[in-house]
């Protein structure tokens, strides 16, 4: 007898997690940064962005910390409140964000008949009991949904299945390299984001005031800590076991958005044409877009005069004739093509 093949294992498929570095294992920029809160940016764990709104007095230290839940990840992202903010202005916000390219979301089939449910799951703990929110934000269509979750001082896994979004029947995620879906962990928000009724049942047009209603403030006390890891976003109505991934795979995925050249040792700028020297770099992976680059320090020159940056390579020039006594070098060159 031939047994019909089933699709029972499909939910365990490799690559089902649309989140990159959900285990917080890669932290190329730094493992700890203090004084965060004045502006948004990527500081420690790759692909995880701190988002702030209007100026807040609140400040925090962000670290990659070896305190993950056993069997899930050795690492987690930790936020430590270092300056409290008891007076929350309307436009203030603090969220941990993760943006996903539209071309990596096509499996959802969003916006048209046959659109899939999606399930988000993650591990959190905190210094005390808090209520925070996780939002999925459709950046192509300006639609969102938020679910509240509670913290304890122990690791807890939260799982939320979100309904398929048919939108107006004509709006799939853009099949390109721009951000189409953001996942935001809301930890602090002013009335601009909290004065409405939380939009929690289904994706709806962004009402701003409905995005974070009902959350506590991470900045309420300098004793507050928040820990996050094991973040997964997958198609379907089931939160499967957190997908483990080898570090080389995760690192390569992260390098599409950021990597460092010559973080130890120096990169030598070689003669290119009669009156130019040039640094030519082939990126380790194809980057999302032509990257911005920054130089940690220069030796025997102070700046590049021009550059050609593509998703696969960089040529950076300095107008200088060859001499046999001074090598031009740079160290700690950062390439970024973040979302």
């Amino acid at each position, binding site marked *: 007898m031939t047994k019909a093949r089933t699709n029972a294992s499909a939910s365990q498929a490799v690559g089902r997690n649309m989140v990159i570095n959900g285990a917080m294992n890669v932290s190329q920029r730094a493992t700890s940064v203090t004084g965060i809160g004045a502006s948004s940016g990527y500081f420690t764990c790759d692909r995880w962005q701190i988002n702030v709104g209007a100026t807040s007095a609140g400040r925090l230290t962000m670290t990659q910390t070896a305190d993950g839940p056993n069997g899930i990840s050795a690492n987690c992202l930790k936020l430590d409140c270092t300056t409290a903010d008891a007076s929350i202005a309307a436009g203030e916000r603090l969220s941990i964000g993760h943006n996903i390219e539209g071309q990596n979301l096509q499996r959802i089939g969003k916006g048209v008949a046959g659109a899939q449910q999606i399930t988000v799951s993650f591990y959190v703990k905190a210094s005390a009991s808090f209520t925070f929110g996780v939002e999925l934000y459709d950046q192509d269509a300006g639609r969102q949904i938020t679910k509240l979750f509670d913290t304890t001082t122990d690791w807890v896994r939260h799982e939320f299945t979100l309904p398929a979004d048919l939108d107006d029947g004509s709006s799939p995620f853009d099949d390109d*390299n721009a951000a189409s879906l953001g996942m935001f962990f809301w930890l602090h928000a002013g009335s601009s984001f909290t004065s409405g009724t939380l939009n929690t049942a289904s994706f709806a047009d962004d009402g701003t005031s409905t995005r974070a209603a009902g959350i506590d403030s991470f900045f309420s006390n300098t004793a507050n800590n928040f820990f996050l890891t094991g973040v997964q976003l997958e198609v379907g109505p089931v939160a499967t076991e957190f997908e483990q991934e080898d570090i080389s795979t995760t690192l390569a995925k992260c390098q599409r958005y950021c990597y460092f050249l010559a973080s130890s040792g120096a990169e030598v700028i070689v003669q290119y044409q009669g009156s130019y020297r040039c640094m030519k770099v082939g990126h380790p992976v194809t980057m999302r877009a*032509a990257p911005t680059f*920054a130089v940690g320090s220069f030796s025997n020159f102070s700046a590049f005069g*021009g550059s050609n940056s593509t998703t696969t390579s960089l040529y950076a020039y300095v107008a200088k004739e060859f001499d046999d006594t001074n090598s031009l070098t740079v160290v700690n060159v950062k390439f970024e093509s973040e979302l």
Partner: protein
Amino acid sequence: MNITSSQYLQDIEGNNSSVLATIDGQVLYVPVDAANTHYAEILRQVAAGTITIAAAD
């Protein structure tokens, strides 16, 4: 992003191929590519009249 300076840089063929910008206190070489989020923000602030990009030297 707090952009405090921006100036085009030319490649060796004379094209405005990048912008040397100071963004959030960091000196960055930003490619002229609308998919690059730094360049997109520079263009947004130029359109808003917040900044101008100086011509290349």
